[in-house]
Structures are given as C-alpha cells and as structure tokens.
C-alpha cells in the first residue's frame, strides 16, 4: 500500500493518530485508571489460569485474604504502606525539582545505620526519651548528609546526579556491611540480630497494643507536612519553577543552587526518618536489606501519584496490597516468587500504561473515507 505512488491531492490519513491532551477532566482520568485496573485483573486472571489452571477468582480471593484476611494482616499492610509511603514522600521534592535522586536507598540506609549505631552505643547509657531524640536527630542528619553531597556537586559543578546518587547507594551498602560485620553476633555471622532485645532500649514505643501505630502516625504527619510544604509554601513554589526550567528560575531571581541543595537536604532528611522508623520502629536491627528496595518502588509510587503526597497514600496502598496479596498466592498455591512477580508485573504494567492514555488522546480516522 505504502509503495503505491501518491496521487495528487489525496492525502493518506493514518488509521489513528496521537495528540497530547491539553487537560482532562479528573473523572475521566480516574475512569481510565479504574478501567486499566479491571483490564489488568482480567488479563492476569487469564495468564494465571493458563499457568496454574486455578480459578482466577480464587486467586483474587487469595490476594484479598493475604492483605486483609486477619486483623493482624491489615495492620501489617498498613505498616508496609506507611514505610513505602515515607520513602515515596521523601523522594518527591527532589523529583518534583527534576532532580533524579535514585539514591534514596543509600539515604535510608545511612539513617538506619545511624539509628542502629545509637541503639548499640548509647543503648543502656541514656534515658529512653533522650535516646530516642538523639537517634531521630542523628538519623535525620545522616540521611541529609548522604543526599546533600551529590546535590552540592550537582549545584556547583553540574555533575550527573543520577550516577552520583547511585554510587552513594553502593557506598552506604558497603558501609552497612562493614558495621554488620563489626557488630555481628556470633562473630562473622553477618547478623546483628535484634538490638537490645532484653531492654528494648531505643525501640519506638508501642501505642496500646498496636505495634506499628506510632510508625503509621509519624508517616501520616510527614506526608501531610510535605503536602502543605510543596503546595502552599514559597519553597514549594521555587521547587516547581526550578523543575520546570532552571533558566526561568534564575531569571525571576530564584537562587537555584540554594534551592537544589535545600531540597535534597529535605529529601535526605525524610529518608533518614524512614531509616529511623525501619530500624527503631520495625526491624530493630540493621542489614543491607533494611531499605529492601523500597526506594526504587517509591519512585514509581511518587510518579504515579503525580508528586502529590496525598495521592501517594493510594498508590503506595496499591503496591503494598499487591505485594502482600501476591506473596499469599505463592504460599497458597505452593508457587515460587516468579509467579507473584508476574502478576504484580502485569498489574503495574497496565497501571503505568494507562497514564499514556491520560496524557495523550488517540484519535481514529473518521469513517467518511469516501476518497472523493
């Protein structure tokens, strides 16, 4: 067809073409998203039926059971959600500024390592409230320092922040490995074990009988604060402008270097809080897996939520739910992790894919192809 010589005056219109949408009603956007989730469920249902010959409905029921089956599972889900949300909120200001900080893993680890160090070194020397305060401050500082180093180099010498933050991750991981070796019990086992198991020194207190409630409340507070900061403060506005165009920012008198460094400082500080919550409020130990890849998932959470911390509650809920649900499917059906990865992958693919249809409009060729 394409080889046919074009006739004069007759322009071949493609079957469809794609245009960027100027705007989209939020109802419509959500309709597309919900549609995508439904599509994803149907599609992953078909795939899992073909692979396992299990009834897809029972697979979904198993996922729901894994996430909400008992009161404890619901709390667990909320805890996972909170930890993912905390890191997502942390990476957001930097991403909003179009600063590609993929070093949250390292920043969380730096915060976690600082927390663990305080618990081990001052565990039985300081009174509990003071110890917790010291831990919080030190971990925030550690996370912030880990983030400010690449920001400083970027602001002053235009170094590539993606590579720089990535390398900082490796340094943090090795640093944690070193201290894990140093603190391991028994010697050389690569396990610090639960720190202060007998005294609970430096453990975030339990509110009532709810082990993770304080974690969840702290993350909620951080999230709301970040929302207000980004949306209503002058700083938040500066971040948006720098993100849109550094030149524009400079032109209207925004001190770009200062904004970059300050914003990364905040990003790193919140990562430090996440590290603190993971070590003091969750695991009570430190290992290379303390951040557990959350900071990479967090990038997705943040982008999907359009950098809006409140929407992130929803997107991190979705990812935490998929994680819990899929692992229950593995347990129930006796399948290994690859299967739950496939299901999670399909669902995330559809959800990310649907953003395309929210950003762009697909217009089909109109019927009147009469070719006069």
């Amino acid at each position, binding site marked *: 067809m394409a080889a046919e010589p074009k006739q004069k005056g007759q322009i071949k219109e493609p079957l469809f073409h794609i245009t960027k949408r100027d705007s989209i009603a939020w109802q419509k956007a959500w309709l597309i998203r919900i549609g995508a989730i439904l599509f994803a469920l149907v599609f992953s249902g078909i795939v899992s039926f073909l692979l396992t010959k299990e009834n897809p409905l*029972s697979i979904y029921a198993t996922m729901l059971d894994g*996430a909400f089956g008992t009161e*404890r599972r619901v709390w667990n889900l909320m805890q996972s959600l909170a930890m993912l949300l905390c890191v997502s909120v942390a990476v957001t200001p930097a991403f909003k500024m179009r600063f590609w900080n993929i070093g949250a893993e390292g920043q969380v680890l730096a915060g976690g390592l600082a927390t663990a160090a305080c618990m081990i070194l001052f565990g039985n020397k300081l009174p509990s409230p003071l110890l917790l305060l010291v831990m919080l401050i030190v971990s925030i500082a550690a996370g912030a320092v880990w983030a400010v180093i690449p920001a400083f180099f970027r602001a002053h010498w235009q170094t590539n922040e993606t590579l720089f933050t990535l390398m900082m991750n490796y340094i943090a991981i090795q640093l944690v490995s070193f201290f894990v070796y140093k603190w391991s019990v028994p010697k050389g*086992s*690569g396990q610090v074990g639960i720190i202060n198991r007998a005294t609970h020194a430096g453990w975030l207190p339990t509110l009532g009988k709810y082990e993770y409630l304080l974690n969840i409340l702290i993350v909620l507070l951080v999230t709301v604060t970040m929302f207000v900061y980004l949306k209503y403060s002058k700083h938040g506005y500066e971040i948006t402008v720098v993100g849109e165009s550094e030149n524009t920012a400079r032109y209207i008198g925004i001190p770009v270097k200062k904004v970059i460094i300050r914003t990364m400082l905040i990003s790193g500080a919140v990562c430090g809080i996440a590290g603190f919550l993971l070590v003091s409020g969750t695991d009570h*130990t430190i*290992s290379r*897996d303390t951040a557990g890849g959350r900071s990479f998932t967090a990038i997705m959470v943040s982008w999907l939520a359009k950098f809006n911390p409140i929407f992130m509650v929803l997107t991190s809920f979705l990812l935490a739910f998929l994680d819990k649900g899929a692992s229950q499917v*593995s*347990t129930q059906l006796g399948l290994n992790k690859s299967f739950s990865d496939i299901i999670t992958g399909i669902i995330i693919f559809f959800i990310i894919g649907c953003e395309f249809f929210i950003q762009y409009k697909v217009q089909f060729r109109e019927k009147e192809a009469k070719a006069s």
Partner: protein
Amino acid sequence: MKHRITRMTALAMTGVVGMGFSACGGGDSGNGEAVTEDNIKIGLICLHDDNSTYDANFIKAMDEAKENLGLKDNQVIVKTNVPENSECKEAAVDLADQGCNIIFANSFGHESYLLEAAEKFPNVQFCHATGTMAHTEKKANFHDAFASIYEGRYLSGIAAGLKLNEMIDAGKITPDQAQMGYVGAYTYAEVISGYTSFYLGAKSVCPSVTMQVQFTGSWYDETAEKEAATTLIKKGCVLISQHADSMGAPTACENAGVPDVSYNGSTKDACPNTFIVSSRIDWAPYYEYAVKCVLDGKDIGYDWTGDLSTGSVLLTEVNEQAAAPGTQETLDKAIEDLKSGKVHVFDTACFTVGGSQLSSYLADVDTDPSYKGDTEVIQDGYFHESEYRSAPYFDLRIDGITLLNDMY
C-alpha cells in the same frame, strides 16, 4: 482519601468473609483442643524459595515428612522468601494465627524474630534450624536443631582428596599443586566448621592438599558465588566446593571443567561433567521427631543434633563421570569409621593451629557480643563439635587453609 481507604478495607474484608474464604479451616486457634494427626498444622518459613538449593532441601524434606506422617496437603503451610527481619516475626505469628501448632524456620537470621513470635504464642512450638540461642534463652516452646553436617563435609572431602590423588597420579598436577578452592558465605563457625571438615577429609587421603577460601558475604548471591569460584580457579585451585546456596559455584565449575563437590543436594543435572558428590542435611527426621513430640505432648528439648545414624546427614549418589574410581567404596568404609567412633573429624592429631597441636580450647557456645569462650571442647584427643549445642562452634583457623578475604 483516608476515608476511601478505610472504606475499601471494609469492603474487601466483607468480600473475604462473604466468599467464605478462610485458610484456617475448623481448628480456630486451637488452644483447648487436643492435637491429633488429623488436626495438627505445620508451618515452615524459608528465606528463599526452591530456586535456592538450601531452601529446596528444606521444602523437599517437609514433603517427605508430610508423607511419612500421613498428613494432608492442607496441614502444611510453607512461606517462602521471608527476609531476616520483622517480616519473619510477622510470618510466624501469621502462621500461628492460621492455627499452626508447630512452626519451623530455616535461616540463621530468622532466629531472634522467631523467638519474639514464640513469646507471643506460648502454646505453639517454634523450631529453628541452625540457631544458637535456645539453650541460653530457655523458653519451653523454642528449640534449635542442626545436624552433624561436618561429618558429611568430611566424607565429601574424602571424595575430593581421591580426585586430587587421581590428578596427581595422572601427572596433571604435582602434589604441591593439590590446591582446593572453597566459596563460603560468612566467616562464622557454621561455615568455618564446614570448610575445615571438608579440608580435613581431603587431607586424610591426600596429605599435601592446601585450600583457599573466598567469602561472598551473602547466603544467596549467584553472581558473587560464580565470581568467587572463577577467581579461585584462576588462582590455581583444581577442585572447588562451596557453602552458599545458589548454583553460582557449580555452574562456574562446569563452565571451566573443574571438578566440584557440591552442597545441599545433587547438582548433577546441571553439571554432569564436574559434579563429584554432595553432602546434605535431610531435615525430614527432625521434622518427624518434633511433630511427634507435639502429638505425644512431649518436650522437644532446646537442641537436637541429627547425625549419620538418624539419617540426617547424607551423601548423594557419587557421579562416576567425575569422581575418582573407587570413591564409593572408600566412602562406605569412612562412614562406618565415623559411626563407630573409630575416626573423629576434628582429631587434634590431624590439624595444627599456628604450627602447634591443640590440647585445650574454650569455644563460644553461649553466644555473646564479646565472643568470649565459655566451654572446654577438646577432650579425649578431639574437638567435640555440635555436642554442647546443635549449631557448630568450631571457629579455629587451622594451618593449610588460606582465607582470601575475611571481612564478612
């Protein structure tokens, strides 16, 4: 937004209830009811899944025990990919919530989290493989178990030594070049005990053997294990063995055509030309013992050590393709010698530390952060491994073995 979530939660929960979906079945938390073969429930927590040779070995043994005990499929729940942090505790209490009467966990780092779960569920038995804390924590429902796998390693070391002798006799290497390589995970007693017994097994038939050890700092890191094996081969090691859980080292050996003594089970299918033999722990005897204790209302005990006679320490089939001729016969005899007590793996006459023979050693049996030795373990001319607690505590660095890196 928060509103929406709570509503979704509620909706989903009613959905679950509505579908009548419950993993629990009838048993409830089952405190009052008597535990019988028909209603007992077993939980198993694994660090990885069956892609890891170590975890596959646990899962396989659980299937075997289930069959031997005549249990139904729904009486066993296996949770895989449970990391060594609070998620382990959550997995354990979730299993208890689902009515499990006895819960096993398989990775060293699970122990303190399993212990936390044990404190919450005093009526449920928690059994930890490879752990060290039960005999000092003294909780009625918390137990450690291991097997005298150093004997298995010693035997597989003999197979390695015979292979080296074959190479020497064929003129491929000189006796001085009889150097083995070993890929280890971490530098603590469990691994040290393992590679030392392997080395001593080889030395018992090939006196000139030496060994280099490269650590990876992880129990499962296929790339690092492969790389470590390759490094060792480049450094002149003519035979490799490993104590880490992926197929990394065996694959590297197959690619390089270097014989490999494997661990956790046979890797013959993937490595038909280089796999010699593998030692492994069969956990089924322990599972059966512990489950029967629960059924009979008996105490499981703080520590349980399986050995050759309980069927816990096994060697796989010898691969004729790669092993030296006569390996099986030599191994059969050595097994008898170990069983009868005629031979001890850590006979002090067979190794030296810093050039001298040992007559006394205080081992760190009651683990503490300062690593202080507390128990005399050398008596009657040999190091008494796995007698004062099930998990190994042999952590001596003996002559003839070089560690290439030891910061793990």
